[in-house]
């Protein structure tokens, strides 16, 4: 995917998150946080300043709209920072491979591991910051589980549907 398409997709996903996914509130307070697709779409680069700064701004925009202080900015920043380590771990890629790297061309097992790990880390930090105390840890873990399942289902369904379209 080229850079303009990535930009359009991330903006579109941000608005979808604000207008649709933040208002689902399935059985009380379970929402999918599909906006982390930003981290998966953002092109790999050896220089990490750009993605860190963009992730911070992206999360902060969402915080402005959902009155949450800085919890989205903080949790998105952490997975933006950890992303390259997991790419090395799961895909065994080096600096040279970054330019041609595309999640669609990798095997599903590796992509699954990578996406699931980052999603669970992000959701756990997000709910811990939202809770902001060591009480109710059970609720935090349950919320992480439910929301992760929700987000991952939407992410894989979405990426599957969109990939089919590109082939035609």
């Amino acid at each position, binding site marked *: 995917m080229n850079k303009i398409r990535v930009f359009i997709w991330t903006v579109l996903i941000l608005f979808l998150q604000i207008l649709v996914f933040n208002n689902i509130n399935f059985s009380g307070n379970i929402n999918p946080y599909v906006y982390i697709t930003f981290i998966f779409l953002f092109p790999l680069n050896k220089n990490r300043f750009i993605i860190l700064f963009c992730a911070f701004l992206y999360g902060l925009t969402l915080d402005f709209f959902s*009155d949450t202080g800085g*919890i989205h900015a903080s949790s998105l*920043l952490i997975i933006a*920072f950890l992303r390259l380590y997991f790419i090395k771990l799961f895909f065994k890629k080096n600096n040279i491979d970054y330019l041609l790297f595309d999640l669609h061309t990798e095997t599903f097992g590796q992509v699954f591991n990578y996406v699931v790990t980052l999603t669970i880390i992000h959701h756990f930090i997000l709910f811990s910051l939202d809770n902001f105390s060591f009480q*109710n840890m059970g609720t935090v873990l349950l919320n992480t589980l439910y929301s992760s399942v929700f987000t991952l289902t939407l992410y894989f369904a979405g990426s599957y549907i969109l990939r089919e379209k590109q082939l035609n």
Partner: protein
Amino acid sequence: MQQLIYFIQKYRYFLFFLLLQFIAINLVINNRSFHKSKFVNSANSFTGGFYNKINSITDYLHLNKENLLLINENLVLKNKVEKFSQLIAEIKSKKIDDTTSFKQRFYFIEGKIEKNQFGGNYNFLTINLGRKDSISNEMAVINSKGIIGITEHVSNNYSRVQSILNRNSKINARLKNSSYFGSLMWNGIDYNILQLLDIPRQAIIKSGDTIVTGGMSTIFPADIPIGKVIDTEEGSSIKRIVNIQLFNDMSNLKNIYVIKDFDKHEIMNLENNRNE
């Protein structure tokens, strides 16, 4: 010096990450405390205006339900007007010397909710009233069925309301059939159920009792309905927790009233003087 530059160069991404993370955590902490959240909130003109545009579309879908609510409220108010007009007619037949004691204390300003939130632990609402509608901090927000929250941050056209579904929220409430009062808080679990704490042990509470605002603060006037008692969790300690089912459905709100208290400054001055 060489070592320091080498260190910075080696860990430059991590240091940049720490800097941004520090800012983010700072914003999180500021957002937790009342009145301190000056920067990140949805009451500014951009986000408020955005929600305003979206709401002007979605409003049409709920017009029927809202109309029904307003008609019901009108019915109640009309009956009250009839009752009071008779009272006034009676009073007018007598002579009144002191007109100052008949002035209005509370003033209602009508508005709409731009953004509703009830999923998290610290929920806020955005309403389409701001400084231009003479809204200020710490004013009560209610609707026809019960209380909603307290205004907390005001911009020119919008304001942010701390919902009663916020773990920082603490509202004075009492039983309708007696004068025992306690404070109404939320434990963050179910958005229909709030907790009434600090109520004296000798107060007799039965399930189904109505809870109303206490009127001990300058924010909420007395006797606004809140909800009814479901059950009480009685421990061995002094702590007694009363679970309250709200009359309001907090997930489905549209039209609201903000209450302005004309006597607020007078009462505040009085209380401050006494403390000195």
